[in-house]
């Protein structure tokens, strides 16, 4: 109800006015006039009590003239309207009255007269007195009260109008600010307030709004420039990332090729030995039909194995970027099967521990790329320790478990861990601990990027007892919840 400053001011201002004037009116009319009435009555009583002994003595001395003169002089008092003297037999000794007007309220006061000699009651005197003087005093008081009321009203009104002018200016400031805030329209404040504070506020607001408008214009231009710079930066960053991903994939491909080389070495040897045996036996003419089929079967199986390896490689390099639901356990197995030969050749044993039916959402090949980075890093680190004979065998333990709505994938190795002073930097781009030409420094950066931006998960690393533990946290797919 009283939301605006003006309405609050108006309400409390006039409330104050009433609070000030009503008690004055109440006090004057109820207390002061009552007091006057009592005072008038006391005056009459006092006068009569003063006159009473003279009346008594006049009666006692048969001073009829004196009595009449005295009572006549009493009757001259404008408020005394009638006087009646009665003896003990209730007979009127004296009666005199004025013409009493109807509107005058008459009060009556009766008192007994005592004989100065016998001290006995010789009669009663009754005075009828009006409140004419009181009425006049009442009128005067009412006039004073009303005058005070109107004087206060005028003072209050002038003050109200004066302060209201200031409040109006503040209201204009409020409206102007509101218009600017909501509609971005500048309404200059034209005020007539003479108060320094209010004028300062109004003028400052005008200046401020114009300044803000200038700033806003500048800000818009700056924003446009900034947007341009940001979009250019983003484009540059995207280009850089694409290049990095490309580099990463190139590196992965290199590692894959190395893996293929490892995978193919054994079947190629087998195929070579089989073909050499077939050639020798055919040249010597000792080739038997069954042995021929056996050798061909061996060759065929190994070619199939090599073909599967190629398929794995091709699947890994599949440019499909569609989001899909996949089993991270299967991804782990696929990646391990690719690098299986390398791990074995480096004397690294691995294990997978997993709960069943875990599914996550993402691009599987990208996830595999992450795993490949982690496994290869472990493999390289183990390889160094084996070379330095600090360990006899490399261990790679992969575990997949579900915690509430999250899938936790841990990759642990026994490669001695990461130095504490660099552990916080290992996900930074172009950061590598590998010897020159062996690492690009973008593998873990890309891995973090894929996990956090593409799969909305997280990746972290910590040192454990004999090595390191990479933890990937991914959202569990809803179908499994």
């Amino acid at each position, binding site marked *: 109800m009283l939301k605006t400053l003006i309405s609050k001011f108006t309400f409390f201002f006039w409330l104050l006015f009433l609070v000030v004037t009503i008690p004055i009116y109440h006090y004057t009319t109820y207390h002061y006039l009552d007091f006057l009435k009592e005072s008038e009555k006391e005056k009459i009583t006092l006068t009569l009590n003063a006159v009473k*002994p*003279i009346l*008594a*003595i*006049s009666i*006692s*001395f*048969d*001073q*009829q*003239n*004196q009595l009449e003169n005295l009572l006549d002089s009493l009757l001259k008092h404008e408020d005394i309207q009638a006087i009646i003297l009665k003896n003990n037999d209730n007979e009127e000794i004296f009666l005199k009255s004025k013409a009493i007007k109807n509107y005058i309220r008459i009060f009556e006061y009766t008192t007994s007269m005592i004989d*100065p*000699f*016998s*001290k006995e009651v010789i009669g009663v005197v009754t005075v009828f007195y009006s409140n004419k003087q009181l009425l006049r005093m009442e009128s005067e008081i009412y006039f004073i009260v009303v005058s005070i009321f109107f004087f206060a009203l005028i003072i209050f009104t002038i003050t109200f109008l004066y302060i209201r002018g200031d409040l109006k200016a503040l209201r204009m400031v409020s409206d102007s600010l509101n218009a600017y805030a909501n509609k971005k329209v500048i309404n200059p404040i034209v005020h007539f307030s003479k108060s320094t504070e209010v004028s300062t506020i109004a003028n400052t607001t005008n200046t401020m709004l114009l300044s803000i408008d200038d700033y806003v214009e500048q800000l818009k231009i700056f924003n446009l420039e900034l947007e341009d710079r940001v979009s250019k930066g983003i484009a540059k960053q995207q280009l850089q990332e694409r290049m990095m991903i490309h580099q990463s994939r190139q590196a992965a491909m290199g590692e894959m090729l190395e893996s293929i080389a490892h995978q193919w070495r054994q079947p190629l040897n087998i195929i070579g030995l089989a073909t050499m045996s077939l050639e020798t036996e055919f040249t010597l003419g000792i080739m038997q039909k069954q042995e021929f089929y056996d050798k061909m079967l061996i060759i065929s199986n190994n070619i199939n194995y090599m073909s599967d390896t190629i398929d794995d490689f091709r699947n890994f390099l599949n440019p499909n970027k569609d989001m899909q639901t996949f089993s991270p356990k299967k991804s782990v197995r696929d990646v391990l099967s690719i690098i299986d030969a390398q791990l074995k050749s480096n004397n690294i044993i691995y294990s997978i521990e997993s709960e069943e039916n875990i599914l996550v959402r993402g691009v599987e090949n990208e996830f595999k790329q992450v795993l490949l980075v982690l496994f290869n890093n472990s493999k390289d680190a183990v390889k160094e320790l084996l070379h330095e004979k600090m360990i006899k065998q490399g261990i790679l333990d992969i575990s997949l478990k579900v915690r509430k709505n999250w899938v936790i994938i841990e990759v642990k190795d026994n490669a001695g861990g990461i130095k504490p002073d660099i552990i916080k930097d290992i996900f930074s781009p172009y950061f590598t601990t590998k010897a020159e030409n062996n690492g690009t420094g973008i593998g873990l950066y890309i891995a973090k990027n894929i996990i956090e931006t593409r799969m909305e998960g997280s990746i972290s690393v910590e040192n454990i007892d004999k090595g390191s533990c990479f933890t990937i946290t991914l959202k569990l797919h809803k179908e499994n919840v």
Partner: protein
Amino acid sequence: MHKHFILFFFLSVQLFATQYDSTVMAIEAKLFPKIALLEQHIKNDPLSMLQISIVAKELDLDEASAFKDKIMSNYPKKLGNKEIHIRLDTYETIRQQAVDMIIVLSNNNEELENIASWANQNHIVSFAYDSGHMKYGFLASIYIGKSTKPYINKDVMLKYNFIFDSYLLQLSKIYQ
């Protein structure tokens, strides 16, 4: 001869006696005791008796007696708390009496002056039947004009320290 003597006596009494107005006397009989009682010394006198003496020539003793009767008829028992006792005295006998107030009917100038002087010096409230005798130094009388009022001699009152009730003074005529 005897008849002639009686006639002579009667005529001489009629010739030398003063004529007193019965109405005036009646008013004075009513007012004088009251005026006296409003004098402070009498008012405060613890004795419950007001001793009044009516002083007159022997020839006026009948008038004095009539005056006494009028007073007694007005106040047969008491006036206020005082019992009224009235004596009749002559110029010669008055000085031997202890009285509170005197009412003088005489018209002998010398006697009047002496009686008034004696009364004032002895602080006796003195009343003159004739208000014209106030000039001889009587304290009070009755003024008969448009209305009848107590007549108080201010000079005597002040000189001999007679104190009257203020209300009485208000309704009285002051002689000065």
